[in-house]
């Protein structure tokens, strides 16, 4: 019986700048179905945090309800975590990010948790540009309740019971673009080469970073009629490769001139976008929207970094919040005393 992952690790596991191995970013063993795309996303998050040398205690994992929202248990076992009410993770994330701006917030949600019950909260995260990474593990079905069509199920997709979905699915990436998100990406759980650098870039981005990840439900939607199966996703995948170079690292890879564009994030990290398409520009929201829409129309799944505004202003800046986390503000800073009051009063005379 093994509801337990053995403690032995490869003796030559590489270490990151903090001296940690990737195993230090592991969580408990997954209880999701064997072969679930979500487990691959968990591994990609784990690998991304390891590669970016983020101290696990500087990360807070937030989730709602659903298969997707169970995921945070399965990675970063030494990080903070909050498993909130269904669809209400955005309000918890907003509050937390305002209260302690020193932590890195990682929201993990699903198509139900985001596009159905949580839709109202989700758009406000975007509107406020809360400084967090928000990953949707999108499988187009309600796996936890036996595979009914979700709000992101594609029109014409066949469900487990043989029924064909009569509704157009909500495209979360288009929605995020429309709503003004400062970082929008799409990826596929089976493409870690792209997903890992996207997660690293999202975590380095200041502001709301959204990644919609197609993540096949291996139990209820991995059959021939499903549009989000492993096979269908691979068949229609139009992937734009991405590379992420953190600020403190030298650029070692050489890119063919004209073959890539690079975007520098606020912290000096660089994202390299390999041009799968000659004309694609990640800094043009209108063009990104057009590209996503036209891919959708032709049945392709366009993945990669769709849009990025590296100089966006996050919620904490917008509301002019103290630069220190609230829990670090002492009595003297919160009640600066009569001398400061007097000087304020003086200023108003």
């Amino acid at each position, binding site marked *: 019986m093994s509801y337990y992952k*053995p403690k032995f*690790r490869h003796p*030559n596991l590489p270490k990151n700048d903090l001296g940690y191995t990737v195993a230090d970013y592991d969580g408990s063993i997954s209880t999701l179905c064997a072969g*679930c795309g979500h*487990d691959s996303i*968990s591994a990609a998050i784990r690998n991304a945090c390891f590669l970016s040398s983020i101290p696990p205690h500087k990360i807070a994992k937030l989730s709602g309800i659903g298969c997707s929202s169970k995921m945070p248990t399965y990675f970063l076992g030494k990080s903070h975590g909050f498993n909130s009410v269904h669809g209400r993770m955005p309000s918890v994330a907003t509050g937390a990010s305002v209260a302690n701006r020193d932590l890195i917030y990682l929201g993990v949600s699903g198509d139900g948790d985001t596009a159905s019950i949580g839709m109202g909260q989700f758009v406000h995260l975007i509107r406020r540009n809360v400084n967090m990474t928000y990953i949707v593990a999108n499988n187009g079905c309600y796996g936890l309740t036996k595979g009914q069509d979700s709000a992101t199920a594609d029109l014409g997709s066949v469900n487990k019971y043989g029924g064909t979905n009569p509704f157009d699915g909500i495209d979360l990436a288009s929605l995020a673009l429309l709503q003004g998100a400062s970082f929008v990406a799409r990826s596929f759980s089976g493409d870690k080469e792209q997903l890992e650098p996207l997660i690293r870039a999202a975590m380095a981005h200041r502001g709301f970073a959204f990644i919609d990840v197609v993540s096949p439900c*291996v139990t209820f939607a991995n059959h021939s009629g499903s549009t989000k199966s492993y096979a269908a996703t*691979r068949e229609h995948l139009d992937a734009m490769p991405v590379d992420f170079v953190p600020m403190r690292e030298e650029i070692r890879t050489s890119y063919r001139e004209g073959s890539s564009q690079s975007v520098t994030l606020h912290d000096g990290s660089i994202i390299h976008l390999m041009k799968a398409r000659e004309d694609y520009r990640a800094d043009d929201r209108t063009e990104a929207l057009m590209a996503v829409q036209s891919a959708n129309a032709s049945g392709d799944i366009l993945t990669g970094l769709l849009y990025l505004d590296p100089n966006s202003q996050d919620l904490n800046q917008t509301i002019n919040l103290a630069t220190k986390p609230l829990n670090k503000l002492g009595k003297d800073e919160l009640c600066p005393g009569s001398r400061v009051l007097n000087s304020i009063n003086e200023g108003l005379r």
Partner: protein
Amino acid sequence: MRATDTSDPEYFHKVVDCQYACPAHTPVPAYIRLIAQERYTDAYLINWESNVFPGVLGRTCDRPCEPACRRGRVEEEPVAICRLKRVAADFKDDVAAMLPKAGKPNGKKIALIGAGPASLTVARDLAPLGYELHVYDEQPKGGGFMRSQIPSFRLPESVLDEEIGYILDMGVTTVFDTYVDSMAEMLTKGYDAIFVGSGAPRGRDLPKLPGRQEADANIHIGINWLSGVAFEHTKEIGKRVIVLGGGNTAMDCCRTSRRLGGEEVKVIVRSPFDDMKASPWEKEDAMHEGIPILDNHVPLEFVVEDGKLVGMKFDKVEAKYDADGRRQLISTGEAPEFVPCDDVIIAIGQENAFPWIEKETGIRFTSWGTPIINDDETFQSTRKEVFFGGDSAFGPSNIITAVAHGHKAAVSIDLYCQGKDLSKRPPPNVTLVGQKMGIHEWSYDSVPILDERKVVPLEDLTRSLADRMVEVELGFDAETAFIEAERCLNCDAQTVFTDANCIECDACTDICPTSCITFTENAEEPELRQKLMVPAENETQDLYVSGDLPTGRVMVKDEDVCLHCGLCAERCPTAAWDMQMFLYNMAKATPNLLEGAK
């Protein structure tokens, strides 16, 4: 790289490191699991079929399996395989009724010269087939070096008698107390084949060292001296003893000396301590009994006063290694060191010696004094009906190697007696069976425990030094044996991959605790080894490579530190991975030796 051909049993055989390293290829994990299940008799029988002397080997084996054990690559220490074998022998029920009996006579008659492990193995393998077997030995009892060289405090006589008895009871004719002094004569006795398992019986001496002749009364050749003790011709030794040599025989000589009146016993060896040939545990056992080991001392002379040995002089040296790793012992230039003593035992190696094999027999020898042998599969000499095995074939080795030679020679003799081609060897007996019992359940304990290697308890030192018949090691009790058995990683539970089922979901890669599995573009082996999640630096361990998968990549598994925990197969949604139990038994003259007896 080309896709791995797992239909060749040698691929999975190599994955079971302990079994692969064992000359007789004993299915180690299989019997260790039986020990954990308290099925000691079954564990013993698996051993007996493969290595013939489980009780003897469980105490004395050179354990090539343990340095090979995978556990030693994921933590500090390998599984105590050898001592678990002893557990099977210690706790088994009476097995006599379960062993095969002599077969219906087939009319063929074989002579076996020397009653050591190689000859006895040949006899065991051939008896059920109906061969008439005549075992010759100059000693009054069978066992060869197992009896004459291994002291009773390491191997009780009762254990030896029992396991030799199982073989001799299969209708084997013993011609003991008989030194065979002419091969030419043996060849006239009407044997269909003759097997020579007479060992490497000549102990090396230092004939030219000054004082050797004068001090002869107090200088003993190690193997002869141990034999004298075993057969109770020698009952005492001086208070101060020098043992020359750094091998396991030297360790047995010094420890035996301690029990025969030696109070100040020293092992003195030419080489540095770390280069000594003795197994590390045998050196530890000697030092535990208060025997110092003086290394880097080259003997200069035996010092004789008034016609009696009073000590030895040594030149102190330093070892220097050249670029090729060749060692030179260079004198430090200090004055020779005098070590007083009453007796010296020379245990500096042994050689093959066949003064009894005449030239005209057509049996030819190499310049090293070993017989010219067809190859290390057939063991046939230059005279086609004569076969060699054990130490007499390739020079001094160990019991388990002699057993392995015996199995192969028995196959050859059987083929030869049937007039068949010796090069057409029977294949090994192999099975590969799925182990899935449920979503999270395998038929074996798949989760490795974290316990460290258990230490074997020892008899009280004073008591064991007082009597050479008292066994020093006490063996594991059942509870300790269970924990030690559970440390085994079940490397014979093979990870079998079916390309056609794989949907490339990465679940196996993500879950693998030791990062063994990578999906990547194929390449030549050196490049592929570097491309893995953790580069595969241990080149003695194979890469398991799949055929091309739908994305154009291949699955590559580095076998090196796979825990055989089965998580890849548990997390696989399509059963592309499966855990299948691999049982490999090397070919023997009698296939299904134990089934035939039931």
